[in-house]
């Protein structure tokens, strides 16, 4: 069975139920489909910018995975990491439900072989 790339309805319900009301950073771990996955993701990345800006989100960090120094083996199989700050969970929901965003969302699915999408709560002062 292929890895889950998109949250399902249950995940989104949990996402809203676990809302503490504050801002958060989405940690994205991305493994591209061999061949044109990276190119497709770059295209998605370019198109998603305006949607992020519209809901007040911004990229905190983006990086390409390089040397692994320590890790359980299965956890090192990603190509890229992206950390994106959203002002609220509501802002994220607004983006992913937007009709224009839904038109570009398939690009992300076509680009990825595997992904981790993980909400993180910033530690104050960091």
């Amino acid at each position, binding site marked *: 069975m292929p*890895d*889950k*790339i*998109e*949250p399902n309805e249950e*995940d*989104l319900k*949990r*996402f809203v139920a*676990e809302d*503490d009301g504050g801002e*958060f*950073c*989405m*940690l994205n771990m991305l493994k591209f489909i061999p061949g044109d996955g*990276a190119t497709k*993701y*770059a*295209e998605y*990345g*370019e198109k998603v*910018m305006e949607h992020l800006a519209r809901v007040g989100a911004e*990229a*905190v*960090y*983006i*990086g*390409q*995975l*390089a*040397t*692994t*120094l*320590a*890790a*359980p083996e*299965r*956890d*090192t199989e990603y190509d*890229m*990491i*992206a*950390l994106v700050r959203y002002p609220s969970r509501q802002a994220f929901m607004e983006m992913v439900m937007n009709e224009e965003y839904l038109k570009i969302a398939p690009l992300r699915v076509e680009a990825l072989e*595997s*992904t*981790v*999408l*993980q*909400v*993180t*709560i*910033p*530690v104050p002062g*960091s």
Partner: protein
Amino acid sequence: MSKLDPTSEDIKRFHMEDAGGPFVMLNLLKFKPDGGAETYSDYAEKALPHLRRVGAEFVYVGHLSTMLASPAGETEYDAVALVRYPSRQALHEMIMDPEYQKIAHIRAASLDRAILQATTPGTFPGTFPAA
């Protein structure tokens, strides 16, 4: 037991794969139950002057919350920290420092599992300097 510290082989590879320039270390941390988080905080506080001395700084520190997608199907870590170093040499210098080595065991004592993964900074839509 899960590997928490790089071996000398890992450090060799780390230098061989050095493309020059700054890098950001992705730390994913699973604390030991009963006090691991507090022990790690103690380590982080003591590590801060060592990071500063070699020109490293925190980019982000966060607690893991809702998991929306993951091959494991669950959140396997407690915290994430991104730390920017000016060079791989800077990290090497820090971990070889006898004063740092006196506190390194606190980190190991606090963790059940960890990912220590070097990343090369890029720009947003997913473009990177040529490797």
